[in-house]
């Protein structure tokens, strides 16, 4: 698929433009596990951000608990800075329904009230179910009903489209 370096470079340029347009002084990066953390780290390096990358595990905030129960793999979220009053850069690898981002924002607000949240996603698959849009996106794609996209990583990062048998 697409060259990831290229996508990340484009996102970096777009983020720089966003930062100056919004007059943001500094961004604190936070990625959604696991792919979002890898992308957040790559963007952090490119943007020369010194603040360490936070990691969110949104398991406790998912809206499908009553349907599928607690996810089996879980590890503590880690935010190595105070979020109160900060401009956060929230990063995920793929956005589709928007539910993951909603869960992530709900979780972030339990750490304090950020000044702002900027959302960056590597791939936007469309098919939104909630009114949530990224500020910066690497690439827009649409997938067939039997296709799934996956980010492999952390080194090197690679996007693959898998065919999944009919459910």
């Amino acid at each position: 698929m697409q060259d990831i370096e290229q996508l990340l470079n484009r996102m970096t340029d777009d983020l720089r433009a966003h930062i100056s347009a919004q007059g943001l002084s500094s961004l604190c990066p936070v990625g959604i596990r696991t792919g979002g953390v890898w992308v957040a780290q790559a963007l952090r390096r490119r943007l020369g951000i010194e603040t360490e990358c936070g990691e969110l595990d949104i398991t406790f905030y998912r809206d499908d608990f009553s349907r599928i129960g607690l996810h089996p793999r879980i590890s503590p979220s880690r935010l190595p800075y105070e979020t109160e009053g900060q401009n956060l850069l929230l990063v995920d690898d793929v956005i589709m329904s928007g539910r993951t981002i909603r869960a992530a924002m709900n979780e972030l607000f339990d750490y304090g009230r950020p000044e702002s949240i900027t959302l960056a996603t590597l791939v936007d698959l469309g098919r939104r179910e909630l009114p949530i849009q990224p500020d910066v996106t690497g690439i827009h794609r649409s997938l067939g009903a039997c296709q799934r996209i996956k980010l492999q990583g952390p080194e090197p990062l690679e996007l693959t489209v898998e065919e999944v048998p009919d459910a």
Partner: protein
Amino acid sequence: MPDNSRRLQLTADGELRHFLAIEGLDKPLLTRILDTADSFIEVGERTIKKVPLLRGRTLVNLFFEPSTRTRSTFELAAKRLSADVLNLDIGTSATSKGESLSDTLLNLRAMASDMFVIRHSQSGAPHFIAQSVTPDVAIINAGDGRHEHPTQAMLDVLTIRQHMTTFSGLRVAIVGDIQHSRVARSQIRALNALGVDEVRLIAPDTLLPHDPEALGARVFHRMEEGLRNVDVIIMLRLQRERMEGALLPSESEFYRMYGLNREKLAYANPGALVMHPGPINRGVEIESAVADGPQSVILGQVTNGIAVRMAVMSMAMGGQLNERQSATGEGVASP
């Protein structure tokens, strides 16, 4: 019995749906409970110590025996999961008007309760309820008779994991009234399932269970021998009412032989953890200088109790909801 216990506690997919006993649960599941609890410890350090997992769910604390710590940590855990909590004071409730336990529970279920946390003086009461009375309500055992106290054991092993990182190679001594202790029974099972090197029981014959070897433990009668080379010492509360049964000569005699003081602590490995499920009888089973000393992790156990209870409640609720869905195609089972 282990198979029965396993079948009752798990869904067809192997997910927790009741938490009744350590017996029948394997290492991967116990490890998942500990990992989930680790995540809840992080939640407890946030500005807002609450997650929305059990929003809209109703939990009833049913304590047929008195308890302060266990009941309040269950209550706090449920509130941090955003559940609605009802604490039923059994002494003043319908049971004293002659209503049977089954009827009380059926009435509570009719109020759309999703989970019962049960402490009962009768061994097996939570199992009976899970099996025969309200199988579609997640049942959490908060201590039944002399049988098990599984959340206490899980918070103990979580505390050990935090300090020792791994279970293999560890020697753990449990000291005191093991015969009457549901905590000890759960601890022995959890420690063995997680793969410690050795579980030792240190007590006089009158306070030992009849089948220590079957439980997977090695017996010692003297602290000087039993504590040698151990990494963790778990002191149990001496239940004073046992004195009357002539199981012990006297409190001071017990303290002299089995009380943990600085002198006896020195037999254990340097840095050995000192644990106690509480409530502590200072000067009866443990010296204050040891209970409050640098090797004591007793207060950490209490903090971990909240996280462990959040973990088993959310896991059991998840399994229970799955079960209800596959049974009825919808969220709530018919009353």
